[in-house]
């Protein structure tokens, strides 16, 4: 393949390099830029005509000297080499080694953008994963092949929660864990270290592939990074039959990089300066999770999304929620009360729970108990709110029970230790303990048989 080299850079602007009169360059192709210090930078063609080419420069366009800049067109898109040796390796955002070892050698290379999965080729994810965390397993269950993000805020304990999930996640009755693809975008040094040490301590490093772009690495690298990571995940899952857990952190940093470049390109913004195509762009990442018919492996995805100013309606969490199969939301209020994990039940949701739990997967009453807890907690929060206005003394007996329920629910169900692994049956039993604080006539989400079997209101009231 001929590689074309030119020196016609005509302008630079905010991460973009413009070249005039370079004919027949393919849209999306990769380029290598050699600056006046002979340092190499990477780029990608984001607009192409015979008169003008627009190149997005990953490392940025800072102090490029147009007269002394050479651009080499590689005549191929961004690709990543794939082989089983990828496990245990560490790369930067564009797939270059970051662990001091030589690049991966393989004849198998794939375009990092992938191609859309044919919906008719997908199979529906429904195998329950036990994370050992009650607020997830009991109320927002995760299944193999699901994309379930964690919505968080600065300073909240999402890293610890994710590390706990990575440690504990397994199928009921199976020990085999996951291969992990860890994609860090704009992560701080200490957070990165935290994950690496965790993988090390669990002895799983050999089963992890890391793509790392830290806070001080080039922002535009974050645009390629999740795609490279997912290309590896797809390879492991669908070529190599592995169950892969992909962690993408933090998608807010990713989206900010996208805003940076779209602003430079002059794209019409939709909300808060983010481009109108942010939705489709995020979807092209998130939709790569899932299962495929007649393939053994799977891609389960847990992206981390920081909510700027804890605002869930901010475009990044909002559009994410519209694409992913639910969300686990962390709350500052719970965190400040010292509750770990500070999972805010109300806005949290797992859309795939309905097909992954129940008689054949966990326990018959699971989904109804979950709905009942939700309904009761929602009611209890209303009453707590009321109590804060009129004082708890003026509440009825029943309302007092609800207050008690809310407190215990937070302390005994949501709260647990970082090394505490609860089986789903333990979780459901705690749930019934809590529901027994309330009289049966108010529990219309569960069946009479279930009440007869698990509900112990009478015994309590006698005490």
């Amino acid at each position: 393949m001929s590689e074309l080299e030119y020196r016609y850079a005509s302008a630079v602007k905010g991460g973009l390099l413009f070249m005039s009169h370079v004919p027949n360059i393919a849209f999306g192709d990769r380029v290598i830029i050699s600056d006046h210090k002979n340092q190499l930078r990477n780029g990608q063609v984001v607009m192409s005509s015979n008169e003008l080419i627009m190149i997005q420069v990953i490392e940025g366009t800072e102090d490029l000297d147009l007269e002394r800049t050479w651009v080499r067109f590689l005549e191929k898109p961004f690709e990543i080499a794939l082989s089983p040796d990828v496990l245990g390796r560490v790369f930067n955002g564009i797939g270059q080694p970051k662990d001091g070892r030589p690049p991966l050698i393989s004849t198998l290379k794939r375009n990092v953008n992938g191609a859309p999965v044919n919906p008719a080729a997908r199979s529906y994810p429904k195998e329950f994963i036990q994370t050992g965390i009650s607020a997830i397993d009991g109320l927002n269950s995760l299944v193999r092949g699901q994309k379930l993000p964690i919505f968080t805020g600065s300073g909240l304990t999402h890293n610890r929660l994710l590390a706990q999930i990575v440690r504990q996640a397994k199928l009921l009755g199976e020990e085999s864990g996951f291969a992990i693809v860890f994609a860090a975008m704009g992560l701080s040094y200490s957070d990165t270290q935290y994950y690496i040490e965790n993988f090390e301590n669990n002895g799983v490093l050999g089963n992890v592939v890391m793509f790392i772009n830290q806070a001080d690495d080039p922002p535009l690298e974050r645009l390629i990074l999740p795609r490279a990571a997912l290309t590896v995940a797809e390879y492991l899952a669908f070529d190599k039959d592995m169950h892969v857990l992909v962690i993408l952190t933090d998608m807010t940093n990713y989206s900010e990089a996208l805003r940076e470049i779209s602003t430079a390109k002059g794209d019409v913004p939709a909300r808060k300066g983010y481009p109108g195509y942010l939705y489709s762009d995020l979807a092209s990442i998130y939709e790569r999770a899932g299962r495929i018919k007649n393939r053994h492996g799977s891609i389960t995805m847990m992206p981390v999304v920081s909510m700027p100013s804890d605002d869930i309606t901010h475009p990044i969490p909002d559009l994410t929620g519209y694409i992913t199969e639910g969300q686990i939301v962390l709350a500052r209020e719970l965190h400040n009360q010292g509750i770990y994990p500070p999972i805010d039940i109300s806005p949290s949701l797992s859309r795939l729970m309905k097909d992954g739990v129940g008689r054949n997967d966990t326990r018959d009453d699971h989904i109804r108990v979950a709905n009942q807890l939700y309904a009761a907690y929602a009611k209890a929060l209303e009453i707590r709110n009321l109590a804060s206005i009129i004082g708890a003394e003026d509440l009825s007996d029943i309302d007092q029970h609800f207050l008690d329920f809310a407190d215990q629910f937070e302390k005994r169900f949501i709260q647990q230790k970082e090394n505490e692994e609860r089986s789903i049956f333990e979780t459901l039993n705690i749930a019934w303990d809590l529901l027994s604080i309330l009289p049966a006539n108010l529990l219309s989400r569960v069946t009479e048989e279930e009440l007869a079997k698990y509900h112990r209101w009478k015994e309590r009231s006698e005490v």
Partner: protein
Amino acid sequence: MAGKLIEINGPLVRAQLEKAVNGEQVSIGQLGIIGEVIGRDGDYSTIQVYEDTESLRPGEEVIALGYPLSVELGPGLLGNIFDGIQRPLETLAKIAGDYIPKGAKVTPLDHKKLWHFKPNSERHEGEKLSGGEILGTVQETESIVHSILVPPNTQGELILLKLEGDYCLDDSIASVQQGKEEKLLYLYHRWPVRQPRPYKVRDHAIAPLITGQRIFDTFFPLLKGGKAAVPGPFGAGKTMVQQQIARWSNADIVIYVGCGERGNELVDILTTFPDIVDPKSKRSLMERTLLVANTSNMPVVAREASIYVGVTIAEYYRDQGLDVVMVADSTSRWAEALREVSGRLGQMPVEEGYPAYLASRLSAFYERAGRVHTLSEQRGSVTLIGAVSPPGGDFSEPVTGHSKEIVQTFWALSKELADARHYPSVSWTESFSGYVNTAAKWWVKQTDQEWLQLRNDALTLLSRDTELMRIVNLVGPEALSPEQRWIIDGANLIKEGVLQQSALDDVDSYASPEKQYLLLKIMMLIYNRGVDLLKLEVPVQELNRLSIMGKAKRCKSTYSSEQTQGLRDFINAINQVFDQLEHTYSENLHKV
């Protein structure tokens, strides 16, 4: 006509292509990627491309194809899943594997499959035929007879109509003399998607679309031929609403358009529908269903097309005298696709980046709903139901706002209700239906004279509850009189016993009109009899302790639509309990 590519900029490209017509399809480059001309400027055409433009380069050949985006209409549509430009995805998966390749060329329908054609016995040679008339029928699935129509723009003397027998789509089954030409007719024809199919006249919608969902059928009904919008923040239940309607509504044909949403939601339908029995035909649901899918990771320009592909197929079945429902999840993604193209064209945005023509495009789309007399004088209808995904759940945004002005039925989903797992999370304060009076005529015939009164009383109870809760939240429950507290309890009966309906509950996922009516009657009966008892100074707490209170809320999951006798018996039981109480307390009162 051929030209060459000049510029590639995301999903939009420019080509030097003389005399291309706006809307014309073009084939681009070696792979033959398909696009559509959306603007002309001298010799230059602006083209929106239905597939990923990566790797295209200036100088590549562009060929104008001479026709607009069209669909194939004929037997073989049902049970299928198509992409946004009607490529059959199952076939594509077979020939190309798990991922959708660029430039794949497959005909939408299987042209080699044989169909058993029965000519219409009323047709005779020499007869003057015009568009929309019925040439014969094909049993497309066990439950659906597919009428083979003369294409709308064709007319002339019938020269030949083939005998009953097996034909594939490539065999002509008839011919007509059109002017000087003999025109061959087939089991299928093509139709441009952006052009509504013609009909004789529009008629009033008269019958409710029964969805089996109480909050819709009883409270905010939709008619066959009507238009509805379902706005709601993420996770509120829009997709479940659409799926429930696809499952249970009493339409003949259901078209499910997954527009910019999740791939797994389509898989859900593809894997569960074949095993669900249609309450109406008693056959597999998949026999009356077809899907159009442009999932969120598929190219955005084909997203805009997918809605038109869906509605054109809907009109085609309407023209056969059938009642068709099309659900579109989500119209917001379609609007965003419009926005993306208009933005790249440099058109002036008016609100949140949307072009000025958003409102007119939306209403032109919904205008394709309706009940009509077809060209062959049958009655058919298209019902359109669009989900709306407002950013941040804010209903004041443009797509929700415009949709609200266009539709007659508005099912507003509420985050608060969804967070409390009150499903369907349809807000009874923000939703509306302009079809209540028409629907009432049907309901009164099906159930009881008191139906409209019951419905209105229940809504009144709910709105009084809302007011009272406002007071409670200011000063606490102690401030309420017993009658007022009973209103709150009565409203809870309605909410839990009638409005809440889990799609996941096998017994209650579908509720027949009779069951809907009886449940409403039960809750209102308890409330009304309670009001009488309060006058006898029965304490509210005592009413609340009655075991029928818990039972009433569980009735919906205890008795299926086939077991309505159980509900009638329960009504008697309620009356007995209250008679008893009334007796005791009126005696007490007398003693005093």
